[in-house]
């Protein structure tokens, strides 16, 4: 094990710090992390600065609008750490830069790359992901939204759900059943769909948090050129799977956990009841420290998974458990945040006396959504036991009658 960053990387860290010292105040006020959705003027400007300095679109070739650096995970770690600890925005992110762009780089045609990558990383074109459907759970291969050929176009009909940022997106990258006669997995294509196509309707899906973090998207014979397929027809399943980009998510999610922990410590230092600070309550503090151990475990686990990737090894079962474990830690951090505020921990929706803009309640509910969404915890556990531990699938039930 060698976690040394070495002189080159320490120099890089100095460089990042210098950048943050000089430019940090131009960042949008949203704090650390990556913004998704429709970027405002300030964010677009900031994003441009970030790309110029190699802190966003870092490894995207320059001809496609990126900074063109060699991949260097350590540098990415350093950027994450420094931006995070300075509380400075990482700029524009979301599913376009994070999922579509790597997919195009690997599977897209030259035309597609030149057309889409630059505007996407600059935040000018916003994307949403069209994978989940009401009946599909995490069994994405069971996607029903279908495309019928009509000349050189497809006519797409069906429904997607849990689509984040759909209401502000210019484009969707979606899994569409284009080959009705092929097998379940071989019948899907990866299609780029303009959201202003007639026949597409977006309905916001409000969740228990009170926000419309998601949407439903309805397709009624929406006409899309067949040339908008990425890769070959019928390869959609494979393409979607190769770019689920674990490493990015894992680094990002452990940074998010770490950020939540810091905020929690801050909250517990400032919040008091009857003159006793939350952090001075032996019970709340004990929970805090156990959660700290879990946050650190996820952090080092992320580094371990990354190392596996770098070495071209499968992380095995250790990779499968990260989502389930991480969401749960995040949920528990929020629960402690609420408890630390006692009765005032229930305040919400911008109420007077609300703390931290209601983030603890919002996060408590949203992380529960993460636990049960995108393939519920139940399905995650099936996957872990079957793929990770080699346990058999449940036998199919007997036919009735």
């Amino acid at each position, binding site marked *: 094990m060698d976690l040394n960053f070495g002189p080159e990387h320490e120099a890089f860290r100095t460089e990042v710090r210098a950048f943050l010292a000089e430019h940090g105040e131009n960042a949008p006020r949203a704090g650390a992390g990556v913004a998704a959705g429709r970027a405002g003027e300030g964010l677009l400007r900031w994003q441009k600065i970030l790309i110029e300095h190699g802190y966003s679109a870092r490894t995207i070739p320059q001809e496609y609008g990126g900074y063109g650096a060699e991949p260097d995970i350590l540098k990415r770690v350093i950027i994450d750490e420094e931006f995070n600890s300075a509380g400075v925005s990482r700029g524009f992110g979301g599913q376009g830069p994070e999922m579509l762009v790597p997919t195009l780089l690997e599977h897209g045609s030259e035309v597609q790359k030149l057309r889409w990558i630059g505007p996407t990383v600059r935040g000018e074109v916003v994307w949403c992901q069209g994978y989940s459907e009401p009946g599909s759970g995490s069994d994405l291969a069971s996607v029903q939204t279908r495309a019928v050929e009509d000349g050189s176009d497809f006519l797409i009909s069906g429904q997607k759900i849990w689509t984040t940022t759909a209401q502000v997106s210019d484009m969707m990258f979606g899994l569409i059943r284009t080959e009705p006669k092929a097998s379940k997995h071989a019948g899907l294509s990866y299609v780029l769909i303009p959201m202003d196509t007639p026949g597409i309707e977006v309905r916001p899906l*409000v969740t*228990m948090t*009170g926000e419309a973090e998601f949407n439903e998207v309805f397709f009624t014979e929406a006409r899309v050129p067949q040339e908008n397929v990425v890769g070959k027809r019928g390869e959609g399943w494979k393409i979607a799977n190769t770019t689920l980009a674990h490493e990015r998510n894992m680094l990002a999610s452990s940074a998010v956990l770490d950020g939540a922990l810091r905020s929690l410590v801050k909250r517990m230092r400032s919040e008091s009841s009857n003159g006793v600070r939350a952090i001075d309550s032996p019970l709340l503090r004990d929970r805090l420290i156990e959660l700290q151990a879990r946050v650190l475990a996820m952090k080092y686990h992320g580094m371990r998974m990354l190392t596996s990737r770098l070495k071209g090894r499968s992380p095995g079962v250790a990779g499968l458990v990260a989502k389930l474990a991480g969401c749960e830690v995040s949920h528990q951090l929020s629960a402690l945040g609420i408890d630390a505020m006692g*009765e005032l921990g229930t305040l919400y929706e911008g109420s007077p*006396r609300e703390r931290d803009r209601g983030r603890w309640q919002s996060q408590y509910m949203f992380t*529960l959504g993460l636990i049960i969404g995108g393939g519920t915890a139940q399905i995650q556990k099936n996957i872990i036991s079957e793929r990770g531990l080699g346990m058999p699938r449940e036998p199919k039930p007997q036919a009735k009658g």
Partner: protein
Amino acid sequence: MDFALSEEQDLLAGSLRRFLEEECPVTRVRALVEDVPGNDGGVWKSLCELGVGGLLVPEEHGGSGLGLLDAAVAAETLAWGVAPAPLLGSAVMAPVALLAAGNAEQQGRWLPRLATGSVRIGIAANELISVRDDAGIRLEGDRLHGTSLMVIDGVEADHLLVALAGGSRLALVDARAEGVASKRLTTIDRTRDFAEVVFDGAPVGEWIGEPGGAGPACRRMLDAARVMLAADILGASERAIELAVAYAMERKQFDRVIASFQAVKHLCAEMITELEPARSLVWYAAHAFDQVPEEASLMASLAKAHLAEIGPFIVRTATEVHGGVGFTDEQNLHYWFKRVGVDRQLLGTPEALREDAARLQGFSD
């Protein structure tokens, strides 16, 4: 010995459930509270006609003179229906305080109106438990000063029952008097009415009890409230389980209802295994309040602390059983989830209540 609800209590629960199913299903609750949290839209009036307002009010004052167990049955049922209603303040905490410390004249003046629902009394007693942000009410001359947070049923209240710092005095104050300013505190649970009330030289309408002698009445009021909150968690959790089981019996995946999947069944079994013994605990805590005074405070703290632990587990698990749809606003399941979330924190966190229980037993200083 008869450790069970009486026939009358079963009937009360049944008739309240029917009323809520018919008159105030969650769709109506939603419409009522969407704009104004805690807005009961006449539901409280109807509930008072069914006798809910006067459960604890003696018969001579127009109530039915029942006990906290009856009130707990009502609380459980109202939470089962996530009904917005000032049950806690106007039908329990205020009557309990008046009966414990008010004089005959005061009882005769207030209790009948509480029973009919023609008057609502909000409760400014949060600072008996937890002082945050320098809140607390003090007396200067004959005027009240200071802020009380999380005032129960405080926005819609006609009058406020105010516990002075230290709990030695209880004042009844006209909520519309000069020097009283309240603003709504919005919680995750829109079925509740909470306020922050600032007293800036507000006149005391009347004192409840002797000056300096309100401590026992305050404790009594808190004990009752904690049992009611425990019952609230009980009812909300019970409904969450019902909804989860019903959903699982309906929703199909892989050509079978998900209720036939062992993992889903076990989640449901785990929920009910937590709930049912807890129900017995809540019943006993209410009974102790009515009949075993020396155990009342201990049982109230234990019951509320315990329900505050299992309730969040149950509503979370019920949401998990629903899968993604349980997370949507549209499904309404979150009304119960949030109700439990507020109950857990109110009038004593679980840790604080266990510490109180330890103190009551001489386990700690």
